[in-house]
């Protein structure tokens, strides 16, 4: 049982240290609550965090923009520059009038004409395949808007966000007004992009070219009427529209 004093002191000090750390460990909150997660979960969570951060950044930006506008208005109120306030509101109103279809617009664009095919039927071919349908028109309109068309009209009816193109037998209803073939779509926008969207391989335009008459013309100047204008000038349809509206509402 021979043991050196130095070793004893060392052992003693070491035991004290271990005991000390044990006590500290016992006092530390949230001990041994470690969970092992797979790296997939980690990367998923990381993606979530990044997405939320981006979301927050966007919201902050919107807040900043709104704050800026509030500041602008407040500034105008304080300096009593009613003229300027009116002018800025007028500009805003002008912008909304343009995008909502409340006024006629002019600019470069394309003109698309869709008509029933005049070729003969193949053997066993259905006659419906060679007729223009509302769905054809809708898909073409969608393609135009997707390609960045700023204003679109169909046979003189402005296409707005509440517009409808629906089947009516041999005719098609546009904004609730019956229209017969040929269908003339006019779209203002970048002519190159719009015509490419109509004619490029695998586009819907290229697809229906086989069965119906489909013609795209680039124009330097196209005038798209305001919403309601086209209908008012064609009184034959106007009366039907007005009567129908009045009777069907009840």
């Amino acid at each position, binding site marked *: 049982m021979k043991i050196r004093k130095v*070793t004893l002191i060392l052992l003693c000090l070491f035991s004290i240290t271990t005991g000390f750390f044990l006590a500290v460990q016992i006092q530390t909150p949230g001990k041994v609550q470690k969970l092992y997660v797979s790296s997939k979960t980690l990367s998923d969570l990381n993606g979530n965090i990044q997405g939320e951060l981006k979301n927050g950044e966007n919201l902050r930006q919107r807040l900043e923009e709104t704050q800026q506008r509030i500041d602008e208005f407040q500034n105008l109120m304080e300096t009593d520059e009613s003229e300027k306030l009116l002018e800025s509101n007028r500009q805003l109103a002008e912008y909304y009038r343009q995008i909502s279809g409340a006024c006629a617009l002019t600019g470069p664009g394309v003109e698309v004409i869709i008509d029933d095919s005049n070729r003969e039927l193949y053997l066993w071919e259905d006659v419906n395949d060679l007729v223009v349908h509302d769905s054809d028109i809708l898909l073409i309109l969608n393609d135009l808007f997707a390609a960045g068309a700023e204003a679109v009209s169909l046979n003189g009816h402005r296409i707005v966000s509440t517009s409808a193109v629906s089947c009516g037998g041999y005719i098609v209803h546009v904004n609730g007004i019956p229209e017969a073939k040929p269908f003339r779509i006019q779209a203002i926008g970048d002519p190159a992009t719009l015509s490419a969207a109509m004619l490029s391989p695998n586009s819907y335009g290229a697809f229906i070219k086989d069965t119906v008459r489909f013609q795209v013309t680039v124009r330097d100047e196209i005038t798209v009427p305001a919403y309601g204008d086209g209908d008012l000038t064609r009184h034959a349809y106007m009366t039907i529209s007005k009567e129908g509206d009045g009777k069907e509402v009840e």
Partner: protein
Amino acid sequence: MMVLIVIFGGLIIGLLIGFATGLAYPSEYTFYITVALLAALDSLVGAARSQLEGKFSGLVFVTGLIVNTILAAALTYLGDLLGVPIYYAAIITFGGRLFNNMAVIRRILLDRYVLKKSE
């Protein structure tokens, strides 16, 4: 016997000091410290056992202590990096050895003071 008193007395004193100071460290490190503490306890109990068996060596004790502690912490860190709970290895090894050493100590003490078989 002296060694046993020193070790357990020291542990108790250390515990008292620790509770008196009321310290706590950031919870990120608790895991490493837990495993390192286990290694330290294992070394201490191992020292008591070898002393009772009469083959205690200060050098073996100190090197074993340092290497075991560092290895345990390193294994835990490696497990953290790989996403595999390697620290289980340290816990099982040290825990098992603790039981083992305690059993040996108990038997030696029983032999010596209860059964009176030794000198």
